[in-house]
């Protein structure tokens, strides 16, 4: 998978189903079915994880879709996984406050994806209703990750979308610089116009070099540490 260099090679366990409906999702509808794929057998998965580690995997990553949708399975799985290998949770951070105590202390690396910088883009591109208060939910969870897990690593991801540097990345960058200064940031520059991206004219192309340069410059200006 195209993950941060510090985290690869990684043994990845992908739980199907997602609570977002991003028009640019590279897996699209199949990944939204929470019953897709094969049932998770935690002990067998843990055995495979150990095997992968023996073969060179540096981390174990749980992702989705949105993995916290299957929180019971997630907890059962984590209970079986080896505890001497960094465990990574890749999430869109749209989980509820009730989920926090269940997730607390389980992961060595939190890898949340802060996707949208405003409610209008969230609604237009991912069908997130304003009533969902996505920004508040995600940012509250990021603050929780950072403040309640000082020993863990927090890497905030943002997928740079063409035409959305000003409206999405800019407010996110400023929020991070102001609220979580020093947090590692992973700017994802490989936007792929997949699935229903064509519904949005600005999303019909990859990110331009100009926009990438603008986004990177802003990160540097705000002293956001970027990770490759």
């Amino acid at each position, binding site marked *: *998978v195209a993950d941060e260099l510090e985290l690869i090679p990684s043994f990845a366990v992908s739980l199907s189903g997602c609570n977002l409906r991003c028009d640019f999702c590279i*897996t699209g509808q*199949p990944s939204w079915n929470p019953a897709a794929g094969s049932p998770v057998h935690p002990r067998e998965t843990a055995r495979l994880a150990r095997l992968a580690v023996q073969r060179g995997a540096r981390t174990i990553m749980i992702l*989705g879709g949105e993995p916290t949708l299957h929180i019971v399975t997630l907890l059962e799985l984590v209970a079986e996984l080896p505890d001497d290998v960094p465990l990574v949770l890749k999430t869109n951070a749209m989980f509820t406050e009730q989920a926090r105590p269940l997730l607390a202390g389980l992961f060595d690396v939190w890898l949340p994806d802060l996707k949208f910088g405003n409610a209008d883009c969230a609604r237009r591109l991912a069908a997130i209703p304003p009533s969902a208060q996505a920004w508040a939910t995600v940012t509250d969870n990021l603050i929780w990750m950072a403040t309640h897990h000082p020993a863990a*690593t927090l890497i905030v991801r943002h997928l740079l979308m063409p035409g959305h540097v000003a409206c999405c990345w800019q407010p996110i960058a400023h929020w991070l610089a102001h609220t979580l200064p020093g947090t590692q940031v992973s700017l994802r520059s*490989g936007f*792929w116009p997949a699935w229903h991206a064509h519904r949005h004219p600005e999303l019909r192309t990859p990110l331009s070099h100009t926009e990438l340069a603008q986004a990177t410059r802003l990160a540097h200006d705000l002293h956001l540490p970027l990770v490759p």
Partner: protein
Amino acid sequence: MIPNPTQPDPPNPAPPTRPAPTTTDLMILPDGTIYARNLSPELAALLATLNPADPSMAARAGIHTPPSPSSSPCPNP
């Protein structure tokens, strides 16, 4: 130029009991930029030959030197 093959979200990797994806998608832009998804180590090795100076692709090809423990963000490597 071969950019970091980042994607909106990782391709839903097959569950561990299933085989890995058997196809990789490439998108080549007019300026020569190459994007790849569902990148296999084998194709990463091929792409790495196009730009040996790209550490990202080298890492994905498994031909990199892992960062030292002190540079790892993982607290318990």
